[in-house]
């Protein structure tokens, strides 16, 4: 494969309904009204020279290379800023235009280093290309005039350099930072000839607000902003299109390689989830794949106190198989189980659940979605009939009001966060319900209409109060409810009760009633209102209740079943949706079908040749309980560090310590592998061949850019374990696994690798009824027929602040790090977040004598850990916050066994804690 160069149409596509016909260089082309002359030309194969124009940025008109001749117009208008008009006749190539373009290039080059041959962008430089295109042969101004050649290079960013001497002041980086990313970290400083790109207030990139999303690097037409990897390794020579393995946005990337070495990851314009944008993780933090910490050989040990012994694959797999069988022989079929990973591909996850159900002969399979989004599956299934979000990301472009609850997209789903910001800048209104003042509450150029600083653990009271306002203020969409829903009358009676009024719950949620009413009116009276939520909804004792509460609100206001509306989970990891879809829950076969369903079971039994257990198996927390109990003794863990990520670490380690066989499959030795007997090296996404399904149900291809460094695909290992246990399980390749998924699962029946390679990606359901997939769900009716209103009582969590533990701890993620940090900590991203910090309100710090940077003890009733404090105005009084990216912090040492009543999703977001000063920061370090 060669390097993929996507066509740059120069200006964004327009979606005007009317089309106009223009003639360009004799060719006639039909384009939507509002399309630029430049884009119209590109669409009929005519490339007009350009430098400041690129098709993900609004036209700017500064470089003046794209001048054209238009009949009846004076002078030479710029084709990028001139919209087409019907009947317009354009010439793009005349001797006069050629002379003007050469003149422009002559000016550019008179202030540009003449180092093309040694420049890292050589061969990939638009300035160089344009000099060639316009036929520049000499620079008659000479090179000793005023210039910028002595400007210094800023190398503070870990991933890219800013060489100001090469800058042509086209502003593409500045515009990309604003228009695409929405951070506005860059500007042009000064004016006239002194104009130059500056970060922040003229300091370095690292001192600025730059979030290192890479949009500026992407936009730069020269080598001014250049990936350091390109400087070091040279220009890539081939590309492979694949999918990012970080968050649930599921961005498409071109992995660009030189030989077998990945030089850079470039966001792919045709990727439907990201449309050419990226964040610091996907764009730059791929170096972990080649990190020396990677364990590439299998290892075995008898006891967890023994040293590891590297062995061949055969031995390791044989060992796992025989030990698992041995445990079952002694303790029963149900004594073993497996946990699949939301970071692995659909195919890898599918084979794990198949191994458990068919080879282990039980349903003891669960996935890490248990600890994040299991309530989403439960809640949306109960109300709408399908365990997934209702919209595609693009839908938010049509939303007039966006309600974000318990999610922090600019950190956790940055590319979608940028999309939300763009929509807000276009005029949509935002309501944020979150204890913290997250970035979306107020950041440059955007501001939420309402911030509802809900007290942790009181979400259901909040959502009920919103529904109460809708019902009692006449904001119900009666027509929608009558036509499409059921159980409304009972729900209406329930929710109208005065105990759900904003005034009644004010003291519970901490949200002023007037504010809540105003926010609800805004949501309910919008033409299109959408709800986005994250783990701040699910990771509670009433996570599932809250999901149903949101579903009620959306139905009551008719905000379901079209663009711009819906109820949408922002999934944490790359394949949370997929791992759930693949039947990773102990009660469900692929496609969310209950194990007790004989017809469904029959399909699998016939295909798999085994009788399947009709009773649900153990969920992850139940596995730990059963392990301590002695009825659960063997565990296969795929790509998840449960010791670090699951709550109440002491309980987890106690469970693992009491097991006979713990098998860990991962990239790196981790906290869990400390309790493992077998370590099976896993593959990074760069080695995988399969699919990920993102938060919008989009199935994206993951293509290998290199062979597995371990010598084996992860699905092969799983198959071989099953075989070692006597169950024949074999595939030629991962495409065959997807074919089996399609064969057994109606919502996937139209999916195959061939189809994905052909159309790029599809959103399930994808079958005969929807061959191109389903961007928006529940358009003509709910999946379950009628949407069901569920009564959602608010039940306070048992976790409450007390005299001993007066503060509430809530946990989350930060932009530069990801989950347990296994990947990101092994990249340059640690430059931004070298440690987990405890954020607390100045008042809470003050009364404890704590200053910024001090080391404190963080204690709950289950444990205690130590970390440093960051005083943060965005925290509410009484609530502290930390991340769990670093094992040394062990944030989950303090989280408890409390969980969602319906799904056992842990209550990560509410832990009563106390914070006390351990040692102050040395005075010298305070001054920063």
């Amino acid at each position, binding site marked *: 494969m060669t390097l993929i160069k996507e066509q740059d149409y120069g200006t964004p596509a327009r979606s005007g309904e009317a089309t106009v016909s223009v003639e360009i260089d004799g060719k006639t082309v039909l384009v939507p009204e509002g399309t630029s002359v430049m884009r119209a030309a590109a669409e009929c194969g005519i490339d007009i020279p350009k430098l400041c124009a690129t098709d993900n940025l609004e036209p700017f008109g500064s470089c003046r290379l794209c001048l054209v001749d238009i009949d009846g117009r004076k002078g030479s208008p710029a084709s990028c800023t001139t919209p087409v008009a019907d009947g317009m006749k354009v010439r793009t190539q005349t001797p006069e235009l050629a002379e003007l373009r050469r003149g422009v290039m002559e000016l550019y080059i008179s202030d540009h280093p003449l180092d093309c041959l040694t420049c890292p962008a050589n061969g990939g430089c638009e300035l160089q290309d344009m000099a060639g295109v316009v036929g520049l042969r000499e620079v008659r101004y000479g090179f000793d005039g005023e210039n910028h050649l002595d400007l210094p290079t800023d190398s503070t960013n870990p991933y890219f350099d800013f060489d100001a001497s090469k800058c042509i002041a086209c502003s593409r980086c500045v515009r990309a930072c604003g228009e695409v990313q929405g951070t506005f970290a860059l500007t042009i400083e000064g004016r006239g000839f002194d104009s130059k790109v*500056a970060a922040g207030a003229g300091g370095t990139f690292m001192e600025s*607000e730059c979030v290192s999303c890479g949009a500026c690097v992407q936009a730069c037409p020269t080598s001014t902003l250049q990936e350091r990897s390109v400087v070091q390794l040279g220009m890539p020579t081939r590309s492979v299109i694949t999918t990012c393995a970080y968050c649930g946005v599921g961005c498409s990337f071109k992995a660009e390689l030189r030989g077998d070495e990945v030089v850079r990851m470039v966001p792919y314009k045709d990727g439907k989830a990201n449309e050419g944008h990226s964040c610091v993780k996907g764009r730059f933090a791929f170096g972990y794949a080649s990190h020396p910490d990677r364990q590439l050989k299998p290892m075995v040990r008898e006891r967890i106190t023994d040293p590891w012994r590297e062995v061949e694959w055969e031995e390791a797999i044989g060992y796992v198989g025989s030990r698992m069988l041995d445990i079952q022989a002694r303790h029963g079929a149900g004594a073993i189980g497996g946990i699949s990973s939301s970071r692995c591909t659909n195919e890898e996850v599918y084979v794990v659940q198949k191994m458990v159900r068919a080879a282990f002969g039980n349903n003891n399979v669960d996935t890490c979605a248990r600890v994040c989004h299991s309530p989403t599956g439960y809640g949306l299934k109960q109300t709408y009939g399908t365990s997934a979000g209702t919209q595609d990301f693009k839908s938010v472009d049509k939303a007039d009001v966006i309600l974000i609850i318990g999610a922090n997209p600019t950190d956790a789903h940055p590319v979608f966060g940028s999309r939300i910001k763009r929509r807000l800048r276009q005029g949509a209104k935002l309501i944020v319900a979150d204890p913290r003042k997250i970035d979306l509450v107020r950041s*440059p150029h955007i501001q939420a209409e309402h911030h509802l600083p809900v007290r942790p653990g009181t979400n259901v009271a909040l959502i009920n109060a919103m529904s109460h306002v809708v019902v009692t203020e006449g904001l119900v969409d009666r027509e929608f409810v009558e036509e499409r829903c059921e159980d409304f009358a009972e729900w209406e009676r329930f929710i109208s009760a005065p105990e759900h009024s904003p005034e009644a719950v004010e003291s519970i949620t901490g949200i002023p009633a007037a504010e809540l009413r105003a926010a609800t009116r805004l949501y309910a009276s919008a033409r299109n209102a959408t709800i986005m939520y994250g783990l701040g909804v699910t990771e509670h004792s009433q996570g599932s209740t809250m999901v149903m509460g949101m579903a009620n609100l959306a139905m009551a206001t008719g905000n379901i079943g079209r663009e711009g509306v819906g109820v949408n989970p922002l999934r944490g990891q790359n394949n949370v949706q997929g791992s759930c879809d693949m039947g990773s829950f102990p009660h469900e076969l692929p496609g969310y079908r209950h194990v007790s369903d004989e017809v469904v079971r029959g399909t699998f039994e016939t295909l798999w040749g085994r009788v399947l257990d009709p009773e649900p198996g153990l969920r992850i927390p139940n596995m730990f309980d059963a392990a301590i109990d002695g009825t659960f003794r063997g565990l296969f863990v795929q790509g998840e560090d449960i010791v670090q990520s699951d709550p109440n670490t002491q309980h987890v380690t106690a469970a693992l310590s009491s097991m006979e066989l713990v098998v860990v499959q991962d990239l790196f030795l981790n906290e869990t592998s400390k309790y493992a007997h077998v370590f099976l090296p896993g593959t990074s996404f760069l080695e995988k061949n399969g699919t990920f399904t993102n938060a919008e149900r989009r199935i994206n291809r993951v293509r290998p850019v290199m062979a597995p460094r371990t010598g084996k695909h992860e699905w092969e290992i799983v198959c071989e374990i099953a075989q070692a246990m006597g169950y024949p399980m074999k595939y030629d390749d991962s495409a065959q696994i997807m074919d089996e998924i399609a064969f057994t699962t109606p919502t996937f029946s139209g999916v195959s690798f061939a189809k994905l390679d052909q159309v790029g990606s599809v959103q399930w359901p994808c079958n005969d009824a929807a061959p191109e997939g389903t961007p928006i769900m529940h358009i003509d009716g709910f999946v379950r027929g009628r949407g069901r209103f569920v009564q959602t009582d608010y039940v306070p969590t048992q976790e409450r602040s007390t005299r001993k533990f007066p503060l509430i701890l809530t946990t989350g993620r930060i932009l530069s790090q990801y989950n347990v940090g296994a990947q990101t900590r092994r990249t340059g991203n640690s430059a931004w977040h070298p440690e987990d910090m405890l954020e607390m309100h100045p008042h809470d710090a003050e009364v404890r004598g704590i200053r910024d940077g001090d080391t404190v003890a963080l204690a709950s009733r289950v444990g205690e850990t130590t970390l440093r404090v960051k005083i943060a105005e965005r925290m509410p009084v009484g609530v502290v916050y930390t991340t769990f990216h670093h094992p040394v912090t062990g944030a989950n040492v303090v989280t408890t066994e409390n969980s969602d009543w319906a799904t056992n999703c842990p209550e990560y977001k509410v832990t009563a804690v106390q914070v006390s000063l351990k040692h102050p920061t040395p005075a010298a370090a305070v001054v920063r």
Partner: protein
Amino acid sequence: MEDLGHVDPAAIPILADELNLSKADVHGVVTFYHDFRQSAPGRTTVRICRAEACQSVGAAGLVEQAKNRLGVGLGETTPDGSVTLEQVFCLGNCAIGPSVQVGDRLYGRVGPQELDRLLEVTA
């Protein structure tokens, strides 16, 4: 663009927060306009018009005279901090130039003696 005199770099984050802009936005604006100095000017700013109308009646000589007398270049402040000397392009007093602005006060028909007198007073 309200009249801010000068903008201390330390004030940029505060201004940015106040206006809900990024630091870069504010920096870009501050560096675009000549009126926003990043350092405090002298106690008095003397601006000599160098536009065509004043050129035609001897502005160039006044600029040289002021530079020599104050010992600073255009855009610079005297070491004692008393005077900042600046050029300006047009003060709207083109019929009776050369024109000089001292603080907010405009002077027309400024000859060499008049300039000396103006600089004397500011020193």
